[in-house]
């Protein structure tokens, strides 16, 4: 899923400054699962903003609303009845796709992103998420013991580990596992080292972002 986290409150306050009536739009998709932009988090942020406004002695009305998803126009248009309220700003709590879709559907509204969209990943433990995919568009993890060197090696090496791998950690930070250490351990324990060594991959980045913004059109669904 898409992993996101809320922007610092001070940055969000700059979005709200001088506004009297705002709408917080939460999302029930990925950002609910990663506890960043669901109904609960919208409630917390709304309280924070109301408290801050009260403290500053400025008027601020904060409405909250949750959409099923914000990456699909059919849900975005559920906002239409609320548009009669004449909000000074709409703050989307989805990944960056949400505020873009809202801004595109309602071009007269001022739309702000509440979250920073961070990466594609999963939960390692409660409250801990880690990157596992870079959406390069051509998955090759089966050649690396089921591990992704593109997203998990700081240098995206296909023939690692580099000379900075030490004690199972990446040279960039002791917080980062060296994925190449894990790959070597995995292919060694699988007994597939020989097959692995014969690989000499060169990545074709055309399927990645390097080929330009990507789009998929599925013929059978277009009819």
């Amino acid at each position, binding site marked *: 899923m898409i992993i996101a986290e809320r922007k610092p409150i001070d940055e969000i306050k700059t979005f709200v400054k001088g506004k009297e009536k705002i709408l917080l739009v939460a999302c029930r998709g990925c950002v609910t699962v990663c506890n960043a932009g669901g109904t609960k988090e919208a409630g917390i942020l709304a309280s924070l903003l109301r408290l801050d406004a009260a403290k500053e002695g400025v008027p601020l009305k904060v409405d909250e609303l949750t959409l099923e998803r914000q990456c699909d126009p059919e849900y975005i248009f559920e906002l239409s009845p609320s548009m009669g309220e004449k909000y000074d700003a709409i703050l989307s709590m989805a990944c960056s796709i949400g505020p873009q879709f809202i801004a595109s559907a309602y071009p007269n509204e001022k739309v702000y992103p509440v979250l920073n969209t961070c990466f594609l990943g999963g939960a390692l433990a409660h409250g801990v998420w880690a990157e596992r995919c870079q959406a390069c568009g051509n998955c090759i993890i089966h050649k690396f013991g089921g591990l992704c060197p593109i997203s998990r090696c700081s*240098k995206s090496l296909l023939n690692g580990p580099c*000379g900075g*791998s030490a004690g199972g*950690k990446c*040279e960039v930070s002791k917080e980062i596992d060296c994925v190449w250490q894990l790959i070597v351990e995995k292919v060694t324990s699988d007994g597939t080292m020989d097959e692995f060594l014969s690989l000499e991959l060169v*990545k074709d*980045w055309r399927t990645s972002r390097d080929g330009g913004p990507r789009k998929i059109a599925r013929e059978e669904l277009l009819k």
Partner: protein
Amino acid sequence: MTKELKTKSHLEKVLSLGHFAVTGELGPPRHAKASDVEDKVSHLLGNVDSVNITDNQTAVVRMSSLSASVLAQRKGLEANMQMVCRDRNRIAMQSDILGAAALGINNLLILSGDHQSFGDHPQAKNVYDLDSINLIRTLKNMRDEGRLMSGQELPEDGRPRLFIGAAYNPFADPEDYRVIRAAKKVKAGADFMQSQCIYDMDRFRNFMSRAVDMGLTEKTYFLAGVTPLKSLGMAKYMKNNVPGITMPDFYIERLKGVPKDKQAEEGIKIACEQIEEFKEMKGISGVHLMLVEWEHMVPVIVKAAKLIPRPNV
């Protein structure tokens, strides 16, 4: 081992004639003053066979490796131009390889490159389009097959005749895999390999004995990396802060045993002992002296280690 020469490289010639080679290292300045490169060259000239010119090492912006290499060669010192995969994509790297060869560079040493988070522009976007092994293969194909990665042919007299260098690090992890990775570089086309700074001699001896057994040293010249310890502080720093360097406690103890003003001298003494062992070590064809920002000590160490005069070939 005598081999048919692949290039016009002086270093290749020295190695192919069986001389114990000595290479140096020169870090280009963080400004545009050519005289800074020339001053450093003056300490190395006549004391090494060729000099590595680093490519924005530790991800700090410096004069480009190609420019400093040309400056060194104008002063009569052959350059081992370094190229890292961090800052350029395959288009720029192949282009710079063609340009380097056209400007008379004979040796190109290929590295992954330190991550930009270590340097003075941690905000930078990195590239890593190819990795070092991809780039070694690419350069070999350009030189020997006369083809770019695209398949575009190079005319016979327009191929980059570069002696291909690579790095090996027996001290990074996973330990058992390091010699296998070196083997991948040999297979990809490395003609010579220089190691990370060696302090842990036991681990290095093990590594080399495996490399010899695997036949790697028959195909590629292996040079041993030497960086004399300037002080006890430096030894401790290397032990605790540099990923991919292992520092045995007995060197730290040995430096502790001498007064502060004698530690550099002791460091040189240790380096000379190491060099004596490398001269005899099976599979080792020379030493790579890395005295970055301590270039003026190169004449001292090559004299003490009896590495001069350098062969005039």
